[in-house]
């Protein structure tokens, strides 16, 4: 099963840092996401996109995870040569993960 079948995500940017929220459609799937979607798994999955450290925050109050990924925007929003300088599309890269 793909992650996009059970969860949704939005990407955000600050400089060269990419933020990816991960929110289950059903709050009862939160525990599953906590167990399965580890920092190591995201690091492996986003190889070639995220070059720096990844920090995972757990937000049990709203049953959501947040991944903060450093060195992920080819130098940063204002000076990257990429088409999508903000990395707004990258939420769907995370959601491609097999669970």
């Amino acid at each position, binding site marked *: 099963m793909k992650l996009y079948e059970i969860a949704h995500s939005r990407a955000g940017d600050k400089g060269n840092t990419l933020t990816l929220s991960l*929110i289950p459609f059903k709050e009862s799937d939160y525990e599953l996401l906590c167990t399965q979607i580890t920092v190591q798994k995201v690091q492996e999955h986003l190889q070639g996109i995220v070059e720096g450290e990844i920090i995972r925050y757990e*937000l049990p109050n709203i049953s959501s995870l947040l991944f903060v990924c450093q060195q992920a925007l080819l130098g940063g929003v204002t000076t990257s040569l990429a088409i999508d300088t903000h990395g707004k599309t990258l939420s769907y890269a995370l959601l491609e993960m097999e669970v």
Partner: protein
Amino acid sequence: MKKDKIRIGCGAGFSGDRIEPALVLAEQGELDYLVLECLAERTIALAQKRKLQDASKGYDPHLEKRIKSLLPLLVKNQIKLITNMGAANPLAAAHKVIEIAKELNLPIKVAAVTGDDATQWVRNSSTHFTILENGQALNDYEVISINAYMGVEGILEALTADAQVIITGRVSDPSLFLAPMIHEFDWQMDDYDLLGKGTVIGHLLECAGHITGGYFAEPIMKPIEGLATLGHPFADIYADGSAIISKVKGTGGKITLQTTKEQLLYEVINPHEYYTPDVIADFTTVKLEEIGENQVWVTGGTGKTKPSTYKASVGYKAFYLGEGEISYAGFNAVGRAKLAGEVLSQRLKPQFEAFRIDYIGLNAIFREEFSAKMKVEESYLPEVRLRVSGKASTAEEALLIGEEVEALYTNGPAAGGGVRKNVNEVIGIVSILIDRNVLKANVDTLSA
């Protein structure tokens, strides 16, 4: 007199946002306040450049159009407007609003909130500033402008002066919303718990169409009705710092737990410590509950102290971006695009400090390694678009890229079409920290 509830709407979430949802809010939203957030990181540096060319410019280029259509509704329905459309020149923006008000025969008081422009102060200062992002010295940059993210102070002064239209320069986005809460509910400036709650509400509203399901929508897993008539949000905010997020009946889009969660976490680097000039807010204590159709109840959220420094955006001359694009389709489209890419690399790459080739439709977005994992059969792609980009130190050099792409029309490979070329001067943004005691908000009021 202290109120126990106010309603704040957010009519714009960025400088290029649509006008219609703000008009709907002003007309039917029964608002006390309308906020238009129109100032991205880079927008202010671009505005500073316009101000250098013409001292009467440097505010949001859409200000005139927005104010002309909104002002009659704001006056009729007694709604106060708070906006950062002042950009690099809030005072000139305020004069423009007065001019429009006089034309429309609407007597109003307008306040310009300044004090965020730290360019001169930093230039005259003997302090050694270090760039937050990379540790380099500020002196290494060709600085255009420096604007600090200010807090609520200037807006509060303008509200006390009873201005109906408040135009700021660089202010932290949530402060635009937090200021009327502090003003109306008499919150104390050191009641960080309440300031944290208000900041959460401001953050939920500030991107407008994000929380009403616009940027959330995906037709299979996250379908949203009425995207073409997407409404923007408002919040009923109570004196205890709780709020109900909603939108005008009949507008498109949807506000749900899911859309609210996506916005709560948007661009958050550390949910335990969300920094604004007013408070360091804790988003992990926020609770959300869907209490009706398009109604999400927000409680919790806390805060602790305020930072001793302001974060300031430094706009600097970065480089000239040169771009060229050309499309290939049909048999071996990817092969021909890649051959074109090789030819262009050979001709151009040695001349540019940074040079990049993308194959749009194949790997331009998720980048090469990740896209390869998605296992698309390249030979089945009906079309692909080659994009070449590079950084140059002059516009002339940057233009070379588009010219070489255009030259593929006769020099091959076969059947490339639809060339577009482009040159842009790029302003980069980095950040520094400035002691908050050296910058003071300044308010000028004008009357029509």
